[in-house]
């Protein structure tokens, strides 16, 4: 496949890895080409005219020039800055997590415009959302769907029968709920309560404007969080790096009375 020497594209910057004297390797997520790596020359110098436009979580339009190995950023223009996220450590940690998930679930150069829209939408909600936990769970489920790992929560993955109300468990390798009759006892199972299952259905089937109306208390939200973390870890076969920082802030918030320790 031949591409023109330069191409203009919109992108969300997922990650910036310092390289050489003042360059940076950018991991970009674009609607047309999916995840793209590009070199931004001199971007770490204060006087670089690219500088402030290419930070992680910024949405930009770029002119990319085809290089020998990597594309090179020729021009950059900021569409929407991460300014709203920079005001709060929690929002920033959540934004990092969203970008990290997209990075982890996408191969290079595989277009997924719906996922791009999802990421942009979620970053937008993050700036105003008073309930980042709900947003993160909604995003995780939507992302799983768009990446081809949508959990089956309506029918048993083995016998395809609608689920009865009792005895649910989630089969991690099959990516769905198995009914008590089909369970062999061999598969890797994650427990899942009926209420949590209903929450999953609600978050999968609804856009965030509806999903954000959900009110849930700590034990339930934690069950869903732990379950999704387990499913994601099973698919990726590794931890999501940025989740650790998120958990640290969360733990900090809970015992905010005594923050003067690490």
């Amino acid at each position, binding site marked *: 496949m031949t591409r023109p020497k330069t191409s203009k594209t919109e992108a969300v910057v997922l*990650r*910036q*890895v310092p390289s*050489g*004297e003042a360059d940076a390797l950018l991991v970009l997520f674009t609607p047309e080409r999916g995840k793209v790596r590009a070199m931004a020359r001199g971007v770490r110098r*204060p*006087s670089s*005219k690219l*500088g*402030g*436009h290419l*930070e*992680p*979580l910024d949405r930009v339009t770029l002119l990319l020039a085809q290089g020998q190995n990597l594309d090179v950023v020729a021009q950059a223009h*900021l569409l929407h*800055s*991460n*300014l709203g996220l*920079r005001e*709060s*450590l929690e929002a*920033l*940690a959540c934004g*990092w*997590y969203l*970008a*990290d998930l997209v*990075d982890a679930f996408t191969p290079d150069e595989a277009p997924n415009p719906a996922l791009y829209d999802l990421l942009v939408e979620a970053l937008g909600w993050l700036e105003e959302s008073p309930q980042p936990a709900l947003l993160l769970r909604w995003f995780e489920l939507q992302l799983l769907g768009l990446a081809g790992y949508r959990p089956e929560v309506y029918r048993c993955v083995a016998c395809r029968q609608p689920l009865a109300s009792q005895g649910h468990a989630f089969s991690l390798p099959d990516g769905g709920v198995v009914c008590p009759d089909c369970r062999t006892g061999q598969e890797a199972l994650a427990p899942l309560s009926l209420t949590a299952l209903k929450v999953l259905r609600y978050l999968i089937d609804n856009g965030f404007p509806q999903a954000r109306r959900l009110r849930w208390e700590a034990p339930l939200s934690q069950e869903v969080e732990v379950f999704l973390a387990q499913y994601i870890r099973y698919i990726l076969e590794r931890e999501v*790096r*940025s989740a*650790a*920082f*998120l958990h*640290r802030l969360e733990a*900090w918030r809970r015992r905010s009375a005594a*923050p*003067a320790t*690490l």
Partner: protein
Amino acid sequence: MTFPSFFPGATPVVRLIEAFHRLPGIGPKTAQRLTYYLIRTSPEEARALAEAILGVKERIRFCSICQNMTEADPCSLCGDASRDRTTLCVVEEPLDALALERTRYYRGLYHVLHGAISPLNNVGPEDLKVAELLERLKGGQVREVVLATNPNLEGEATAMYLHRLVAPLGVRVTRLARGLPSGGDLEYADEVTLTRALEGRQDMR
């Protein structure tokens, strides 16, 4: 990158080229040029270079107070009685302290974190010299902490994180101003920088 052995029996040459090539900012061609330059120089010059490299590795360590690079511990800045001991400037890397020192404006002390929080690159607060910073503040002598981390996302996160840790100790926490670089061109400045520059505008004096 591996280099073909151009000359059978000249493995020391290849070894040196590869060693140079591993350095940041040095490509294969530069590595070759440096190597052939050294082959032609006098033995004294080559020895001086080798000793300088070893000297750095053997004699330089981190100051037990400010964590900066130093030959003597505590470092010359921490040991300098004329420095203002009530102000502490927190920077990411030793080179940042050097840059600030070049201004000759700042008269306080430094604290080097050796990095910034970057969850995507697996750097958390526990990987930085944060505990050492809090330990220094316990002395009660410091009245202001200047957060001079980089004005990028990682630096901002680090600054916010440190602010939360330090503010409850009753120490004044400040952040370096952000705005337009000298010699820059307004039309190329991004919205974030311009917003910050407007926020931080000052009366003409």
